[in-house]
Every structure is written in structure tokens, then in C-alpha cells.
């Protein structure tokens, strides 16, 4: 009996001792790391959501590479700086269609940081789903999860949709490539990885990817507020997306699927019916300043008073801006230092300045009204030419877009600026295109004229014979260098002309394709999945 008592006491002592030890070990905690299960407040969710935007806003993600790729595959730009060709890098391999030779290429830089935003978005969704953030009795609506929940979910779904859609456009054969769109799609995961075995999952098909993106966006449209409301939202919300950002992306998604009716419906929801647009176009002579030289949080992005910008990635000067001088966007487009006459003597051997300039092909396609069109006069720099008398159409007169900056390092020249993702002009033209295809000529003409008149051109009183063609041309003039060209050609199933690649020495810029037009669903405009990803996910397949 005594022995047993002693043994019991000893055992009890041991157990209490061990419980104490467990507590002793539990005390260890980091002051710089937040454990997922300890996220309990609206502010912490705000931090994670900000992190999600910071990922997509990187200059190698949506503030750069994504916009550059959309043009580099296309026909509106040509090589300006010969070093870009002679020392091929990730980016120039996109232009020359040799990106499959580079394992960790220009698309991989994009994938890295967009996935980063995506993972944060997944985490926000999972934390919301777990119900671990509870704020009972919270009087301040800005900190009350019950009032904020929908908005968080909407934002996370919007960010996720944005990433998955762009990944799909980069890594997958386009919509329509197979009858059932079963071709492999994005590599994104829709759940936050939590265990080693989570690394293995198959690529979604393009069909499923588009379905998921649309599901996310439909939810986001319902959940997101119309604008920033200081009574309801913490200031962190100001530079983020509202429901119209979700609608704008949804319009692009339907367009990419060539779904005319849905695209039209969404454009109407976005712009409002008729010709007084919810996002009114800025004045033609203010386009450069008001669309492309904005910096920091601007009142018009997310307030009831709106202008043309529906959603932009916001850079606050002095706070880790993504449009610095070395940002891809500026390296590709911005003419920072004018050339000397000696350099301009031979415009094909320039070894400084931006990687690309507007192509000769663009000059022809756009066929600007050079006396009136403000897009030609204010958004394109045509001052650089071999001689003052060089004709506008000569290859010796160089065209540079001013959209992504000019000059040296002054903020007004493109450094520290915001990067517009969606502006209403794009969707007005998209609605015009869809209406034209449905033979709603009057509606199409009205939208087209809005864009023309803003640019200083006269309105067309009657629809031209080829209204659809006219809208396409207007789109080239309006959206050049904004990263949409390749996807416009793909969705319309049009081949990409080799354009100025034919002007390269020995045609080296299009040697890979044989210098013939690249079909809309060619492998030359579909990136490979980087090997580093395939090495870790044995269920993922490579594109053929």
C-alpha cells in the first residue's frame, strides 16, 4: 500500500513537472513573426491584405513584367537599344520568341511575386473561413470584423483572380485552343500550403481556371464596397480595389473568352449605361499628367468622385516605390537621356536608352492624325531623329512612348508613379467592340466617338463600313504600351505580325519563328513552367 502510494505520488509529481515543462516550452515566442493561428484582429488581417497587394504591385509583377510581356510578344514595339539584342536577357528572349531557352525567365519573375500576393490572399481567405477573428462588442465599425469581413473576402478574391488570370494567359495555350479548354492552365494553388504533401497538385485546366477566376470575381463584385468610406474603413484600404476593379477584370476575362454577351453586360455594369460614364474620361490634354504621372494615394481612385482610373497600383514616394529608375517598365520604355547627334547618326546601333521603341509597324497601324490626335502629340516623344528633316514615318525618326516616363529621375518623369491597371477608356472601347459585333452600331459609334473626341479628333457622324476595324485601330492608338496588345490578338485569333523584327540585322529577332506571322495559339507565345517549380511538384506537367 505504502509502495503504491509513493509510486502514485511520484507519478503525479512527474506529471505536474512535465505539465510545467510544457508551459515552460510554450513561453517561447517570436516578436517579429505572427503565427497564423494568432491572427485575431481586423488590423492583422489588414496587414496581410496589404502584403497581398505589395506582392502584385512589384515592378516585376503587375507594375512591370506583366505589362511588358503583353507588348513584347506583340508587334507594336521594336528593339531600340542594341545591347538588348546583343546580350540577350530574360526580357529580350520574350521579344525574340526564344523564351523557352531560358528556364527561369521573364515570366518566372512575374510568377514569383504574383504568387506571393496570391498566397497572402489565400491565407486571408483561410483565416476568415476559420472564424478565428472575432471582435464581440467592438464599437468602432472599422475594427469590427462583422462589418469588414465581406470586404476582406472580396479583396482577397480579387487579388487571387488577378494573379490566376494573368498566370493563365502567360503559361497556358489560349482560350479556344482545344474544344473543351482542357489544356493545362496556371500553376497557382487555391489553398495556402500547409504541409509537404501540399506541394504536389495538378495544374488546373484553362477551363477550370477561368471558371475559378470568374467565381472569385462574381463574389468580389458582390462583397466589395463601391469606394473607400472613412467612417467604415481603416485608411489602409484607400489604395486598394473596390467592386469596379473586380468588374473591370471580369470584363477582360470575358473578352479573353470571346464571350460577347457577358463582356457587354459586365462593361455596362462597370461604366453605367449610356454615355455618361461612371469613370469619366480625363481631358485629352491632361492624359499624361492625370493617367500616367499620378503618384501616391489619389482621391479619385477610390472615392465617390471618380475619374478615368478604375484601379491602379499605388506608389507612395519614399516608401519602397516599385517604379524606380531600374524598374522594368522604365528600363523598357522611358527615354531618360536624349541622344546626341552622333548617336542618332545610326539609330540601329544605339547602346543606351530604353530597350524598345514604338515599331514602324505601329506607325502604320495607328496612322495618327498628327495634327489633331493628342495621343500622338502628348503621349509619344518623336523628337529623336537623325536629322531635323527626317520624316515621321522614317525608321530614322524614333518614337518613344511617354506613358511610363521620360526625362531623368524627377518624379514627374515617371519615377515613383502609380501604375494604371484598368482605366475606363479600355472598357469603353471594349464595349464598342462588343456592340459592333452584335451590330448595335449606334451604341458602338457613341463609345468610339467618346474616345475619339477626348483625343481631339472629330466625332464620326456615321459608322464607317468597317466599324469593327476602326475600333481595333482606335484601341491600338489608345492602349499602346499598356500590355494588352498580345492578348487582343489572341482573343481575336489573329496572328502576330513579325513587324519590326524583320528590320533586325539578318532577321535575327525573328529567326526562331522563321519570320512568318505567329499564329494566335502558337507555342512561341506560351511560356514554359520554370523547372524549379516542376522539380517540386511532381504532378505538374510542362507545356508542350
Amino acid at each position, binding site marked *: 500500500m505504502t509502495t503504491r502510494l509513493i509510486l502514485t505520488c511520484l507519478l503525479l509529481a512527474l506529471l505536474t513537472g512535465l505539465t510545467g515543462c510544457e508551459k515552460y516550452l510554450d*513561453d517561447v515566442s*517570436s516578436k*517579429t*513573426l505572427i*503565427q497564423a493561428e494568432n491572427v485575431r484582429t481586423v488590423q492583422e488581417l489588414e496587414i496581410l491584405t496589404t502584403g497581398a497587394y*505589395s506582392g502584385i504591385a512589384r515592378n516585376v509583377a503587375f507594375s512591370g513584367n506583366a505589362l511588358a510581356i503583353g507588348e513584347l510578344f506583340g508587334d507594336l514595339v521594336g528593339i531600340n537599344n542594341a545591347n538588348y539584342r546583343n546580350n540577350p536577357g530574360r526580357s529580350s528572349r520574350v521579344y525574340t520568341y526564344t523564351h523557352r531557352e531560358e528556364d527561369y525567365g521573364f515570366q518566372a519573375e512575374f510568377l514569383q511575386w504574383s504568387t506571393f500576393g496570391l498566397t497572402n490572399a489565400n491565407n486571408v481567405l483561410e483565416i476568415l473561413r476559420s472564424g478565428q477573428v472575432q471582435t464581440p462588442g467592438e464599437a468602432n465599425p472599422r475594427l469590427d470584423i462583422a462589418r469588414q469581413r465581406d470586404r476582406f473576402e472580396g479583396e482577397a478574391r480579387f487579388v487571387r483572380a488577378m494573379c490566376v488570370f494573368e498566370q493563365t494567359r502567360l503559361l497556358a495555350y489560349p482560350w479556344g485552343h482545344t474544344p473543351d479548354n482542357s489544356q493545362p492552365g496556371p500553376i497557382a494553388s487555391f489553398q495556402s500550403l500547409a504541409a509537404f504533401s501540399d506541394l504536389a497538385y495538378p495544374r488546373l485546366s484553362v477551363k477550370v481556371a477561368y471558371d475559378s477566376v470568374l467565381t472569385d470575381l462574381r463574389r468580389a463584385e458582390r462583397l466589395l464596397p463601391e469606394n473607400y468610406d472613412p467612417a467604415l474603413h481603416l485608411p489602409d484600404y484607400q489604395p486598394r480595389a473596390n467592386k469596379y476593379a473586380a468588374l473591370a477584370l471580369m470584363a477582360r476575362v470575358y473578352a479573353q473568352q470571346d464571350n460577347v454577351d457577358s463582356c457587354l453586360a459586365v462593361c455596362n455594369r462597370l461604366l453605367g449605361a449610356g454615355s455618361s460614364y461612371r469613370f469619366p474620361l480625363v481631358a485629352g490634354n491632361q492624359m499624361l499628367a492625370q493617367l500616367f504621372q499620378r503618384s501616391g494615394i489619389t482621391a479619385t481612385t477610390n472615392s465617390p468622385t471618380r475619374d478615368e482610373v478604375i484601379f491602379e497600383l499605388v506608389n507612395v514616394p519614399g516608401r*519602397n516605390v516599385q517604379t524606380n*529608375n531600374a524598374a522594368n517598365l522604365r528600363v523598357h520604355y522611358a527615354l531618360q537621356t536624349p541622344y546626341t547627334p552622333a548617336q542618332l547618326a545610326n539609330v540601329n546601333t544605339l547602346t543606351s536608352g530604353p530597350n524598345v521603341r514604338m515599331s514602324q509597324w505601329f506607325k502604320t497601324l495607328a496612322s495618327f492624325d498628327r495634327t489633331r490626335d493628342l495621343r500622338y502629340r502628348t503621349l509619344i516623344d518623336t523628337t529623336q531623329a537623325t536629322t531635323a528633316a527626317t520624316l515621321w514615318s522614317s525608321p530614322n525618326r524614333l518614337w518613344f512612348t511617354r506613358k511610363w516616363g521620360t526625362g531623368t529621375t524627377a518624379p514627374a518623369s515617371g519615377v515613383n508613379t502609380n501604375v494604371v491597371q484598368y482605366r475606363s477608356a479600355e472598357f469603353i472601347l471594349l464595349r464598342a467592340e462588343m456592340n459592333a459585333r452584335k451590330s448595335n452600331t449606334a451604341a458602338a459609334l457613341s463609345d468610339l466617338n467618346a474616345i475619339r473626341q477626348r483625343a481631339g479628333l472629330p466625332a464620326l457622324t456615321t459608322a464607317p463600313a468597317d466599324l469593327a476595324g476602326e475600333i481595333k485601330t482606335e484601341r491600338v492608338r489608345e492602349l499602346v504600351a499598356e500590355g494588352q496588345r498580345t492578348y487582343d490578338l489572341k482573343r481575336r485569333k489573329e496572328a502576330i505580325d513579325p513587324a519590326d523584327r524583320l528590320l533586325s540585322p539578318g532577321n535575327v529577332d525573328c529567326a526562331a519563328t522563321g519570320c512568318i506571322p505567329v499564329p494566335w495559339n502558337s507555342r512561341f507565345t506560351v511560356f514554359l513552367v520554370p523547372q*524549379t517549380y516542376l522539380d517540386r511538384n511532381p504532378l505538374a506537367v510542362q507545356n508542350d
Partner: protein
Amino acid sequence: MQITQAGGTPGGAVRINVRGVASINSNSQPLIVIDGVPVLSAAFGAGGVAMNPLAEINPNDIASMEILKDASASVLFGSRAANGVILITTKKGTSGKPKFDVSYEQGVSSATNRVDFVDNGADLLNIYKQSARNNTLSGLTPLAPNLRNLLPTGILQGTLAPGIDSQLADSTTLYNSRTNWLDQVLRQGRYRQASVSASVGGKKFSLYGSGSFRDEDGIVIGQSFQRVSGRLNASFTPVSWLQAGVNLSANGIDNQTVPLGRTYQSALSSSLPAYPVQLANGAFFNGIANGTNNTIGLGTNPVFYRNNYYNLAHTFRSTNTAFLQLKPVAGLTIRSEVGLDYQRTKNDELQNQTLFPAGINGAEQGGNGRAVNQVVTNQTVNFNNTVEYARTLGKNHSLKILAGNSTQSTLSSNANYITENVPDGASRGTDTARSVVFDRQLSFRFVSFFGRANYAYKDRYLAEVSLRTDGSSRFGPGKRWATFPSVSVGWVVSDEAFMQAIPAVNFLKLRASYGLTGNAEIGNFAWQRVFTYVGYNAAIYGGVQGGQFTSLGNQDLSWESTRQTNLGLDFRLLGNRISGTVDFYNKVSDGLLLDYSLGPLFGTINNVITINLGSVRNRGVEFSFNTRNIETKRFSWETNFNIARNENRVLSTYTASFLNSPFQFINGPNIATPGYPLGNYFMAQFAGFDPQTGNELFYERDRSVFANTGETVRTGNLWDGTVNNQAGNNNFIIQDRTPYPVFFGGLNNTFRFGPIDVSALIYFQQGNWIYDQGERAQSYPFTGQTLRRTIPGVGNVQAAVGQNDNAALNRLVWSSNARTIESTRFLHDGSFARLKNVQIGYTLPYEVAKKIRMRSLRIYATGQNLLTFTKFRGWDPEVFRNGGASDAQANLGPGLTNNDLPQVRTIVFGINFGF
């Protein structure tokens, strides 16, 4: 045991592998215990240089150093002893008259080797041009062979905007320069060290005190190291049943560094002999990174970098223990010990306005100078309590029982400020880029309970059983605790009656042991799924600091454990003239802790998930002999010889239903896959050059066999690596050429001629293969790349370009796609023998010393690494790969070298005297 020093960095780390590497990611270094306190031995870096905890201790203070290799010896530290334990005991006061010792030594050091590079601008640029011409023949994009195409932007005059173009060099200068950048970055190192100690003791007390100073300049520009240290060991025995004592030590270290990547390694990669150090007008060439998109690479001129960069780490470390020991009744000892290890490093790193000008690319604020100021402290408290009872029963039985517990708790603080816009002379800038500050964060804790029982019969038959339970905060709930038992037996055969008939055997003991040990040397929070929202500037959006998904965490993470069987034999023969030990061991480590790299595409900042991957076995034999060959009054000769063989093999890795074969963990050109050693080479197989085009050919791997079994077999086809890098699908598990030696060992001979003694230690290893990544990079002409003079498969390229030897030069293709392929072309036999240490000393005979009132006097000269015999043509066959590299790189890439600094050759003169 294999010990490798960091090549030539003062105070640099050492890698010590006790019985082979048994971990992948986790630290595979032994636990270092100083006077009973486990000390933090993780790299505590400043300026990217891993620090060595052993560098902080004054070698003259060490009384003994013991290495515990097998499980049974590790009960006191068992849970963390999987990699062995190094027990360091410092000196105690000795009874008798006070004793004083003084020592001083001074020496010089230099690199053990130099590799030859193409050493003048004209030859290098001509090789560049010839290789660019070869592009047409080889099938690559043709390229006009002019300097504009072949040099990086920001070198050649006329390529930048006029404002900064004047800082560039014209082509004449480039052709005529013959800058030897190695001469610019390497120098003769020197060091001096002085120490004094005093020791006194009596019946009731003993005291030992010491102080030392060391001053060292490394062999690379910008490196210097100073240490001042002091120690006081005291014990007090007021009554026979009570003893109390303290061991106190404090030292201060000033370590100045310039990252090797900006000095030595820059000289090996991007500093071309064609670049002048200074331009004709005295300005430093290519120094300024200008704020245009034509970024000029920083550090292309190491001299310029060193002149404008400053990094000083001041470390204060104090390791202290205090103990109280009671012996209330005979045989019973109760001991309580508390240890405090305090470490504080203040690190100021500065890039001045010249090096980091306003508007520089990469600036987080406006640039114009950048300062990183950091203060880190770690404070570890240990408690260790034991009760031991020893009793002899009758004449023959003796029994000893020990029970105890210990805890360890580490508190850390960190204050890290990064600022820009640093005024001249200031150490901190005015614009805050980012800061991380946390105070008194509990980093990790361990709790342990242990017990041990020893039994001996006639001191001839010995047995020991021990059990230990450990908990660590580094694992999640439910996975924290692990139990480590061990058992050992010994038999002193020479005490048996039947052995008396063999008088030649003076002593013979057989030993056997089996036990488990553990390893928890991973990140403190690796099991947790975590976000960070400070300190990572990149997560800012719209001016607001966001959070980043940092690590996935792994709730299933648990201890790595090692089962070790050891069979041993100790002997002394022929009147103790020959003695030695023989050991056989078999060590199987399970649940290997692995930081699995997720790569950049899974959306976390850490990019790793820590998992328990599989198991690895180390099996080997160790022989150690000590012979006293000649022993006369005037002359003696003693030989120590040891040789060991360790065989390392991965037994299993992660498997899952979706995997056709066990998971292969690949880290650069190394792989962990079952059936092969840890870090077996995994790379393309070089098949020679195409005789027509000079292109580089490689063997093709059978993809379907690989996909189904993970085995790598050849198809019989070759692929052209110059035109297209397909290495990703064509890497082979390299057979029979592993990074590990077949055997390694040392031979030490000591001779004494009266008062003069001479000793020489030769270290050797045989059969290991080295992969030289630096040589790979330096074998392909590419924009701004230095080239070795002798390139494998091509020969002396400098001679070839002088003689227009096109057969050789055709094998050099500009910007060849093969330049990034890790292949057997750069895999070399790394066997070597090295004269590690030679010492000649003179000890004043005792009688003479006494006359001049001295207890002892000795002068000596030592030479380290004086001679090396090897076929390896790279920098150094004694590869050290942990200068700031991760554990995985060090453990998995033991044979990898990439512009690592070679070991140093040192010549030292010293004097010791005591009175």
C-alpha cells in the same frame, strides 16, 4: 573526426565533423561545452563571415579538450549530441606556490596557393573576340566581335551619357592594362598574441586568472581582428562536504571585414586585368554606380570598394558558471550548476556617399550613403542539477547512480536600423529605410531529465545504462519530447588471469555501446506557420507596411535521432611502448531535419519548409596508434598515427503515393537519394568537344527510366550544351566519384634531442572529388568574366591566343549556354597530403632555468600548411564551404568549392616562460 578551417579569414569558423555528416539541413556541428555549459556555436556573423566560438577562447586557458563520439558517453548532453560533443575544461588553480606564465607569439601568413588567370587586357580581349567569332561556327546567334558587345555597360568610354562617361576607360587603356587584381586584394597577413596567467591554490581554495590579447590582419584587404580576453576560475572548499566555485570569462572582439564577394571573389570573377585600378587622372576606375538605368556593377573595382566601405563588429562575450557541490554523506554528491552565456554584438556597416550615391538603383530611400547598424544580444541561462550516489558493495562490486535535470533558455534582442543619406563621418543616416527592433525575445528552450547507473565488478567488467528525456520548444505540441536510452559494457581483458601469460600486453580493453542521441539544431520557429510584418520593406503597399507569408510551418516536425553502435578496443603493448585504440561504429540517423527549399514560386519569403526527410547511415572504422620508437636520455622519437574511414549512405528519403521513386533532394550539383552518399554529385556528364564545331557535348539521360525509377542511365545519344542548356533533364548521379575521402588521417612525429624538440604533422585524405564551380565560371568567355589561364579540355588559353592556335580556341564560344551547366568537366580528384604543422622548439633545461629564477622557458617556431601535395589544380584541395553558407550547402556540398579563400600558410615564432 575531420576538422576544416575556414580559409584564411581571421576568427573564421571551423567545421568539425565527428564521424561523418549525419544531417542534411540541421547544423551538423558538435555541441561545444565549456566548463559544463553548452555554448551557442552557431555562426554569429558580421559582414557575412561566420564566427567561430572557439576563436573567442584563449587557447592558453584550455586545460583539456575531450571529444565524445559515441552514444554512451553522451548522457549528459545526449539529446543534442548526435554530432558529438566537444568538452572544454579550462585551467584551475594548482596548489603550492603561486605560478605565473607568460607567452607571446607573432607570425605572418599568406595564401597557400594562387591560381593563374589570363593576366593582361590584350590577351583577354582577344580571347573574347575570338570566342565571339566562334559563335557563327557553333550555331549561336552571330555577334560582331567588338568591345561594345563584349564588355559590360559602364566600362568602355563612349557608351554612357556624357556626364558620367568620363569615368570610363577607353579601349587603348583596356588593351594595355595588366592589373593583377589578386595582388590588389591579397596581402601578407600577420598576427601577434600575448597572454599572461597566474595560478595559486591552497587547501581550501584555488585560483586561476589569465588575460590575453590577439591582433590579426587577414590575408585579404580590409580584414582585421582583435581580441582581448580575461578569465578567472576560482573554487572554495570551506569544509570537506562543501565546495563552491565560479568560472568567469569575458572577452571583447573587434572584427573588421569587407565582404569577400567584394574583394577576393570579385578579383576572381568580374575584375578583369583589362581594368585599371585608377584612371590616368587619378580617379578610381568604374567605381560609381550611377543613377541611370545603365547600372555599373558595384565592386568591379575591389580597391575602390574597400576604400569606401566600413564594417566593424564589436562583440562582447562572457561565459560564466557557478556551482555548489554538497557531499552530505559518504558516497552522495549533490551538485547544482548555473551557467550564463552572454553575447552582444554591435555591428556598424557603412557604404559612403561615393559607394552608394544619391539615386542609386536599389536604394530604398534617396541613397546618398547607406548605414546598417545592428545590435544583437543572446543570453543563455543553463541550470544543471545532479545527484550522484556511489557505493562499493563488498570488495568487488561498485555501483554509481546519477539522476538529474537541466534546462536551457535563450533570450535574444535585436535592434537593426537601415538608414540612407549618411553625412560624411557619421555612422548613421538621416532617412530611415527600415528597422527591426525586438527586445528580450525568448528564442528557444530545452528541458531535460536524465539518469544513469554504472556497475563494475572488480573494475574488470563494466556496465552502464542511461536514459534521458528531452523537450524542445523548436517542435510543436505533441512532437516536443523524445527519449534517448543508451547502454554500454566494457571488459578489461588484461586483468584476467589467463592474460598474465602474455606479458607483452600491458592493457587490453574491449568496449561495446549502443544508444540514441538527438538533434534539434534547426530554426527556432520552423514548426510554426508564420507571417512577418516588420523588417521586410518589400511588403509595403500604398505607403503602408504589409505582412508577408514567411513560412509554411510543419506541425509534424520532430527530433532527428541517431542510433549508434560502437565496438572498441584499447590496448597498450610492449611495456606501454605501443598504445592505441580501434573503433568500429555504425550510426543511423533517422528523421533527418531538412530545410526543403520550395524555390521562389510557392509564394513564401523563407522559401523553405523544414521536414524530417529520411535516414542516413555513417559507418566506419578508426585506428589510432601511438608508438614511442626510441627513448633514450638524450634522444626520443614518438609517432602518432591515425587513420579512419567513414562510409556515408542515404538509406531512405521521403516517399509518397504520387512519387514513382523515393524523393530526390537536389541542392545545386549535389543530391540526396537512397543508395548513395549524402551530397553525391548530380550533374551533366561531359562527353568532350565536337571536333567540327568545338561545341561542348554531354551524354543524354534516359528520361523514362529516370521518371520511373529515379536511376540515371545513358541513352547513347549526345546533346550539344553550347547551343542549348538541357542539363535539367540530363543530370546524372555520378558513380564512384563522391565528395568523401575513402580514408583520411594524420601522421605526427615528435623528436627530442635534449632540449630541442621537433614535430611534424601530416594530414592526408584520399579518394575524394572536388567540384570547382569557380573554375566552371572562369572557363567560359562571357561579358566581363575573368578567365583561368588553363581551362580544362582547352589548355593554356593565353598561350593559344598568342600563337593563334585555333584548334584550342574553337572550344571557347562566347556566352556559351554550357557556361551554367554543372558537369563532370570540372570535377577533379581532390586527394591530398599536407604538412599541416611543423614545430621546432627549445626548452631551457630545468636546472638552467632555475638559476635564472624561472620555472620554465621555451622558444619555438611553427609553420602551418607549408607544403601540399595534390593533383588538384584549383585553389585548395582542403575545401571549406561554410563561410556564411547555409547548413544545407555545407552538409550537402562538402566537395564544392566556388572561389573560396584557400587555407593560409603561417609562420610563427613564440616564447613561453613561467616563474
